[in-house]
């Protein structure tokens, strides 16, 4: 299955992927309106330090601990993509307890969680983070 993979040495740490993610998931078609002066809650997050940068998002694990652990059944596998039903989620954070990558996080309202769904849940069509990365430091492909 195609996933988002990191080419660590090409990452500039510019955070564009975070902005593109927040925009793609905002449901808004004007980037300025969607992102100006608001705290963003991207589902992909940059780690930085000592000249190293890389982006982290859900790995869409073959053995997804989050899905197996979710107490409500809100997390499920849909054609290989790990999907969260935010309507069902109660924000117990069991998935945050078990995800080895730290790739699930509370959403903007805090009540329920959000995660990368490879833009299958919005109108971007393909991962917006990858589309907008200026240096191919993240790619969407089979490996």
């Amino acid at each position, binding site marked *: 299955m195609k*996933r988002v*993979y*990191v*080419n*660590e040495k090409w990452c500039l740490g510019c955070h564009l992927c975070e902005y593109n993610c927040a925009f793609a998931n905002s449901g808004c078609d004007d980037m300025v309106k969607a992102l100006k002066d608001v705290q963003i809650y991207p589902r992909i997050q940059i*780690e*930085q*330090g000592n000249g*190293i940068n*890389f982006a*982290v998002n859900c*790995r869409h694990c073959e053995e997804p*601990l989050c899905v*197996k*652990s979710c*107490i*409500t*059944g809100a997390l499920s596998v849909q054609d290989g993509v790990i999907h969260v039903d935010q*309507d*069902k989620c*109660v*924000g*117990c*954070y*069991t*998935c*945050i*307890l*078990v*995800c*080895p*990558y*730290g790739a*699930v*996080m509370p959403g903007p309202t*805090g009540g329920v969680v959000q995660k990368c769904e490879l833009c299958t849940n919005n109108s971007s069509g393909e991962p917006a983070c990858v589309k907008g990365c200026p240096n191919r430091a993240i790619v969407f492909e089979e*490996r």
Partner: protein
Amino acid sequence: MNYVIIGNSAAAVGCVEGIRSIDKTGSITVISDEPHHVYSRPLISYLLYGKTDREKMKYRPDDFYEKNSVTALFGVTAEKVDYEAKKVVLNNGSSVAFDKLLFATGSSPFVPPMEGLDTVPKKFSFMKLDDAMALEEAIGPQSRVLIVGAGLIGLKCAEGIRGKVRELTVVDLAPRILPSILDEEGSDMVQKHIEKQGITFHLGTSVARFGAEKAELKNGETVEFDVLVLAVGVRPNTALAAEIGCKVNRGIVSDEHCRTNLDGIYAAGDCSESYDITEDQYRVLALWPNAYMQGETAGIDMAGGNQLYDKAIPMNAIGFFDLHVITAGSYAGEAYVTRTEDTYKKLITKDNLLKGFILIGEIARAGIYTSLIREKTPLDTVDFELIRERPQLMAFAAPERAVKLGGAKA
């Protein structure tokens, strides 16, 4: 092949999905004494709190049984297992034949003898959907509720009904709340937060006797109440398994394939014991994720596949009135503690391993810590100073990051 599962909760669903990942055609029968489609047990408090409803708390969609070709018998109790004849005898007079059988029977509330308890008209356990609905019927804005038990179940119940009743008091023999998952400092912090919601605690004491609408405590105080919730403890449902000669300690003993000592008989979830790799011993790990994963392992094994359940650890994600707590592992070892006004963090290390942690208030990316425990990652292979500050993948060596994020083979 005839698969039979006694119980219809996390472990049972794990087993069904485990079987069907391998065997698409064998016959599966689920026996459930509860008359409901599979629901999430932990959500019974969220139901009262108003954070979910009967529809959303279904753990799997309505067509779950049909899609997986499962015959589900609701409101039917398995009374006895005939191991020689390979059948389960039901309380409705019929029986179901099996080749492979899973005990996924969970646990039942344990109520110690208490003087005058039988004179209390409105008393409830808090384990099942029917308990929650009966409790909801019994309470109203003028109710004074007494909860006996300041563990996970008692306190989740308290959170669920706080907004619906006038007074809420919690009594526990233990000197602090949630003693099985928190240390003293953590218990204290969470207790203060819960107290701010107008919940009163009497700890380190117990009920000496119940009288008409009141409980006299051993410490001399009296609590007036009209509705009582008993959440003192639970006991694994092991009787059926013990009767046929399954080895039972506190729970049914099962190995890393979730097989019991009897051929073709499996046990998973709250009725069974798991090997806790942080304590190096078998114990009951009464948690939803463990139940699912044990059930899945059992199902795969029953269907002839191979899966090991060999990384079990105690772990909890729990929240009260928007204060989130995540804990895992065991707490004997060297502690590293940081505390702010509304957050608390404790990491416990021993023999070059992370053994356990407690996070209160700040829980972001906690799973990175959990995975260090589960994978027994030697701490000298990661930048522990870095990861101690905050869970992060940066603390792993570059080749390890290439595996985690770059798709490199391990």
